[in-house]
């Protein structure tokens, strides 16, 4: 059985088990939706008062917000098991995974697929449509491709962060709460184009953690603030962030000595 088929099987199992608790699933989904709806209201009211922020209009901000939210949500749905990796290590589940004849990372990803995030994804889709509709962007094939690349690049960056987070767990055996800055923080403040936060932060988000490569620079091209079409390819560069994350995972795995539980 190849990996894709196996993943499909796991997906089906997760779906079935979730449908055993329909009310709970529904409530969690609504909850996801409402929490990010609050953030949307914040953006709405701020833009209502100020009309624009550093040259970005309401429609453009929504577009940026929806792309970040969508990338984060897709990444969280697939890679949620890495975000809660300390429990998998702590309860001995990871030791069982190591005994199976498949890649350990693959099996860890299969162990949890967080489908309740669909509430948030729905919101991202609605905002994306509204953003496309209300911003004055002239849509060309290149621009549409840019949006797709931004989402792919975003998923890759968030996946890399989750992977780094999990790799650190090999050494600390417990989660580090401050890593939330990079996941929840990026989701929370990625609602606006990163450039508005000032030069220092833009530099950090370009060279240290490449948020700006998938969010800010291609967005400049998308909204016509720059005509340099190379900017739309930068999300691919952001994907390179997966390489050091993967290396760290392998390093951590090679040093892993069970917790003994």
């Amino acid at each position: 059985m190849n990996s894709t088929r196996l993943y499909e099987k796991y997906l089906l199992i997760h779906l079935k088990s979730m449908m055993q608790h329909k009310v709970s699933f529904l409530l969690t989904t609504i909850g996801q939706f409402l929490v990010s709806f609050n953030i949307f209201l914040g953006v709405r009211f701020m833009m209502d008062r100020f009309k624009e922020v550093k040259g970005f209009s309401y429609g453009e901000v929504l577009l940026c917000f929806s792309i970040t939210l969508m990338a984060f949500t897709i990444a969280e749905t697939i890679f949620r098991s890495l975000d809660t990796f300390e429990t998998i290590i702590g309860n001995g589940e990871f030791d069982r995974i190591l005994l199976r004849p498949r890649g350990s990372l693959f099996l860890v990803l299969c162990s949890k697929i967080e489908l309740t995030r669909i509430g948030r994804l729905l919101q991202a889709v609605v905002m994306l449509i509204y953003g496309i509709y209300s911003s004055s962007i002239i849509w060309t094939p290149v621009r549409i491709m840019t949006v797709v690349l931004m989402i792919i690049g975003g998923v890759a960056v968030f996946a890399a962060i989750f992977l780094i987070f999990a790799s650190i767990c090999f050494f600390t055996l417990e989660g580090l709460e401050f890593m939330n800055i990079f996941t929840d923080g990026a989701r929370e403040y990625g609602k606006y184009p990163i450039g508005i936060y000032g030069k220092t932060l833009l530099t950090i988000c370009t060279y240290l953690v490449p948020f700006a490569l998938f969010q800010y620079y291609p967005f400049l091209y998308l909204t016509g603030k720059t005509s340099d079409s190379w900017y739309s390819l930068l999300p691919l560069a952001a994907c390179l962030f997966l390489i050091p994350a993967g290396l760290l995972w392998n390093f951590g795995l090679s040093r892993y000595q069970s917790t003994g539980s």
Partner: protein
Amino acid sequence: MKKYWSFFRIRFIHGLQYRAAALSGMVTQFVWGTMEILLFRAFYESAPQSFPMEFQALSTYIWLQQAFLALYMTWFWESELFHSITTGNVAYELCRPVRLYHMWFVRGLAVRLSKAVLRCMPILVFAWLLPAPYGLTLPGSFHTWFFTLLSMTLGLLFVVAFGMVVYISVFYTISSQGIKLIVTSLSEFLSGAIIPLPFLPDGIREFVNFLPFASAQNVPFRIFGGDLKGHDMYTSLLGQVFWLAVFLVIGQIMERNALKRVVIQGG
């Protein structure tokens, strides 16, 4: 009274043990505060005339919010309490010669205070050291300090009293999922945790100011920054007293009624 004081001390000391969690929470809050201020600065630079409060007052609001997050977060629930109601373990609590409402109220206070005590000082000092419009500005008059402290106390008591209503409602609904969801999503925005209430559009803002949630962090933080003063301040303080009283009464009536008809199914 003495037994409730002991409960408070036990819970408070228990809370103080989680120092590593507090340290990591502090790092998060530094970053959050900084990001929040950078964000508002971008708006300020885009259209300073649309800014509804002084930038200094806003910075002060944000830093106080980060420092005292534990006191006023309305999304924080002790799952142990919900759990004890749904599993019936609450029966053990009822055997004790103390009133459930008072005991849980004291517990709520202690948990929030212990979390806040561990985190607030470094954040406040750091914020105070920041350059002028971005840091925490201390008010000059004794008057302001006094009313901030008064208002902070009222706000904290209100948040705990509100939480009690939610905990006790689970006696009636059994499942805590729905109520937690609604309360968390509504109260966050309406209490001014997402954006400070003065930033809401006219019309909506007046309406939100009438709701109970405006009595939590909104009042003390704005008094301290000098944004809320004079007549408006006294009205807001009265509002805090009013909503605190309302929720204390509702909570106690609900508790009495729930305990009258509570059935513990053996086990």
